[in-house]
C-alpha cells in the first residue's frame, strides 16, 4: 500500500462518516467568520430555531467593510455599520468570541488566525471566504465555503464535502535576488492558469518552499485559490513549530509537547502518491506582474504582454476584452508604464514581513509625487509591531502613511477605492474588472515591486534598485 499524503492524514482523521455515493461528513476544528458572509447564515439558524453548536470553536472579526482611518469613530457608511453591528449582535446572541474594531486582536481574518495561534498544523479550518487557503501554510486542511456551508458548520460543526484530488507542486532551487514568494505563486498561476488546479488540494513542496518563512508560505497558500485549487498546504516543519510556539492560543506545557509530536507525523510519506505532480525551477522565476484581468495573466516583469496569436484561439476574444479594459496593447512592455496608485496590504501581503520588506526598500528614498500609496497592515498586531519596530517612521520619512488594518482596497467595500480608469500596482490577490473599485485597473505584484514602482512612479523592476 502506498504511503499517505499530508492531506490524506488530516482528512481521514476528521471524517465522521461517508455518505454513500456522496460527500463525506467532515468535522471542523476551527471556524472563522466575518461580517460579509455570515449574517444570512445566522438568520438561517434563527429560522430553524437553533443556536451555534460549538461556539468555542468559532472566532469572528469584522474586516471587509471597515474603514482604515479613524477606526475609533462610528463607521459612517450606514450599510457597513449595520453589517458590522449585525456580526456583533449575532456573536453575542450565540456566545461566539469576536475581536471587534479597535480590539488589539482585530484584523483580516486570515492574518489574525495564524498570529493568535488559532491556526495550527493538522486542523480542519473553514471560513466563508475563499482565501481561507492561507491557513494551509501550517499543514492544515483549510478552505473557503459559501454561506449555506457557514450555516452548516454553525449548526453542526460539520461540513458535507466531496474529497478533492491531490496535487503536489514542487519548486526546487534558489530564488534570484528580488524574487519573493508572491512571485513564485504568480508564476505558477501564469503557467497552469486560473483553472489549472480546480478539483485539487495542492501541497507545495520542494527546496525553495522549505526555505521560506511562515509569512512567505502563507502568501503562496493564500493564492492557491487563484489557480482554482480547493486549498493549498505546506507540510509543517521546524519553521512552522517555531512560529506557533508561544502564541496566545497555542497549546502550552505538556499539551504543547504532545501536539508537536503529532505534527511531526503529518508530512506526506516518502512513497505517498498524488493524483498529479508538477515541478518548477526557482531560477526561472522573475519578479512577476499581471497585465490583464485575471491572476493567470501574469508575466515576468521584463517580458512583453503576449501577442494575440500567442493566445489559444478560443480564448482570444477574452484576452482582447481584458486588454481593452486595462487600456493596454498586445506585445507592449510592462516596465515604465504609468501608475497612479500603489496598494500594499491584504491577506496576501499585509503581514509584518511584507511591511518590513517594503519599508527596507523605500528607506531613505522618496515616494514619487504622481503616486498615491496606501499601506494597510493586515491586523492590529501587525500595526503595533510596525510602529514598535520603527517601520512607520521609515515609511513617513519616505512620504508614505501607515493606515489602520482591514481588507481595504483589496476588494474596495469600504472607502478605499481606486478611481475609474486609474492604474494600481497592488500586493493583493485579484485583478478582476472592478475589484478595486468600478473601472479600476489592477496589476498584481510583490511588495518589492510595489515599493520600486512607488518610488519611481512607473512600473519598475525591483532588481534594478537592489
Amino acid at each position: 500500500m502506498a504511503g499517505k499524503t499530508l492531506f490524506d492524514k488530516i482528512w481521514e482523521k476528521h471524517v465522521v462518516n461517508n455518505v454513500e455515493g456522496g460527500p463525506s461528513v467532515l468535522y471542523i476544528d476551527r471556524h472563522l467568520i466575518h461580517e460579509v458572509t455570515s449574517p444570512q447564515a445566522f438568520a438561517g439558524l434563527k429560522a430553524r430555531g437553533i443556536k451555534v453548536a460549538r461556539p468555542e470553536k468559532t472566532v469572528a472579526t469584522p474586516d471587509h467593510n471597515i474603514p482604515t482611518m479613524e477606526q475609533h469613530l462610528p463607521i459612517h457608511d450606514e450599510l457597513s455599520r449595520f453589517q458590522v453591528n449585525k456580526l456583533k449582535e449575532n456573536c453575542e446572541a450565540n456566545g461566539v468570541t469576536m475581536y471587534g474594531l479597535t480590539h488589539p486582536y482585530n484584523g483580516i481574518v486570515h492574518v489574525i488566525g495564524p498570529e493568535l495561534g488559532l491556526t495550527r498544523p493538522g486542523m480542519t479550518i473553514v471560513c466563508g471566504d475563499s482565501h481561507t487557503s492561507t491557513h494551509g501554510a501550517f499543514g492544515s486542511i483549510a478552505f473557503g465555503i459559501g454561506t449555506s456551508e457557514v450555516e452548516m458548520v454553525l449548526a453542526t460543526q460539520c461540513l458535507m464535502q466531496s474529497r478533492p484530488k491531490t496535487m503536489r507542486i514542487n519548486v526546487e532551487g534558489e530564488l534570484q535576488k528580488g524574487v519573493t514568494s508572491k512571485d513564485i505563486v504568480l508564476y505558477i498561476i501564469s503557467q497552469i492558469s486560473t483553472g489549472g488546479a480546480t478539483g485539487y488540494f495542492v501541497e507545495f513542496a520542494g527546496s525553495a518552499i522549505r526555505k521560506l518563512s511562515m509569512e512567505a508560505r502563507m502568501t503562496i497558500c493564500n493564492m492557491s485559490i487563484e489557480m482554482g485549487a480547493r486549498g493549498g498546504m505546506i507540510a509543517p516543519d521546524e519553521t512552522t513549530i517555531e512560529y506557533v510556539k508561544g502564541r496566545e492560543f497555542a497549546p502550552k506545557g505538556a499539551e504543547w509537547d504532545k501536539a508537536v509530536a503529532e505534527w511531526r507525523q503529518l508530512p506526506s510519506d516518502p512513497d505517498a502518491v498524488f493524483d498529479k505532480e508538477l515541478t518548477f525551477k526557482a531560477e526561472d522565476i522573475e519578479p512577476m506582474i499581471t497585465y490583464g484581468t485575471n491572476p493567470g495573466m501574469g508575466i515576468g516583469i521584463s517580458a512583453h504582454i503576449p501577442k494575440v496569436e500567442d493566445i489559444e484561439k478560443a480564448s482570444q476574444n477574452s484576452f482582447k476584452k481584458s486588454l481593452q479594459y486595462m487600456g493596454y496593447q498586445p506585445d507592449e512592455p510592462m516596465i515604465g508604464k504609468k501608475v497612479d496608485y500603489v496598494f500594499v496590504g491584504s491577506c496576501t501581503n499585509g503581514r509584518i514581513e511584507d511591511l518590513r520588506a517594503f519599508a527596507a526598500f523605500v528607506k531613505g528614498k522618496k515616494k514619487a509625487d504622481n503616486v498615491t500609496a496606501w499601506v494597510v497592515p493586515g491586523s492590529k498586531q501587525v500595526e503595533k509591531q510596525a510602529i514598535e519596530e520603527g517601520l512607520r517612521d521609515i515609511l513617513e520619512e519616505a512620504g508614505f502613511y501607515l493606515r489602520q488594518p482591514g481588507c481595504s482596497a483589496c476588494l474596495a467595500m469600504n472607502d478605499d477605492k481606486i478611481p475609474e480608469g486609474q492604474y494600481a500596482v497592488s500586493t493583493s490577490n485579484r485583478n478582476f474588472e472592478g475589484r478595486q473599485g468600478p473601472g479600476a485597473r489592477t496589476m498584481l505584484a510583490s511588495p518589492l515591486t510595489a515599493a520600486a514602482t512607488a518610488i519611481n512612479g512607473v512600473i519598475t523592476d525591483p532588481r534594478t534598485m537592489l
Partner: protein
Amino acid sequence: MPIDKFVTLESPAVPLPIENVDTDQIIPARFLKATTREGFGDNLFCDWRYDKNGQPKADFVLNDPTYNGQILVAGKNFGSGSSREHAAWAIGGYGFKAVVSSFFADIFKNNALNNGILPVQISDAFLAQLFEAIEKDPKVKIKIDLENQSISVPATGISEDFDINPYKKKCLLNGYDDIDYLFSIKDEIAAWEKAAQ
C-alpha cells in the same frame, strides 16, 4: 434553507460567451453589504449591465430582449474568484435555474447546488454547439433532464450527458439540503466528537 426541487427544465437560454467570468463580475463587492438573501438579482452582472448613471447598456445580453429564459450558458471557467454565495443568490434571484459551462470553479459549484441552481458541466465542443444553436435561433429551447443527467436541444437533436454527484442529485430531485441530513446524524456526530477527544 430548503431548496427548490429540480427535475427537468426546458427553456430558451441566455448566452454569455465570455471565459473566466469571476464572482466579482457576477456580483460586485459593493453589493455585499446586505444581510438577507433577497434582491441580489437586480445587481447581477451590474457593471456589465448598467453604465455609471444606472442606465442599461444596450450591448449587454441581459438587456437584449432577443434573449431570455431560465438557463445561462457561459464560457469556460465560470464562477472563479471569491466564495461569495451572493453570486449564486444573484443568479437565482434573476431567475436562472441552471448555468451551463464547460468548466466551473469549485466553490461556485457548491454554492449553486446549495441554492437549488444546477451547474451543468459539458464539453468544450458541446458548449460551442450550444452557442451556435442559440445564435441561429435565440428562442431555441434547451432541455436539461437531471434524472437522466442529459442536456439536449430537442429542435436540432444534439445532446450530451453530464456528471453530478449522486448525493447532490438526490438533494436536488427531492428539494432537501445538507443541514437536514446533518441533523439526521446528530447523535453520530456527538459520539464521534467524544471519541476524538
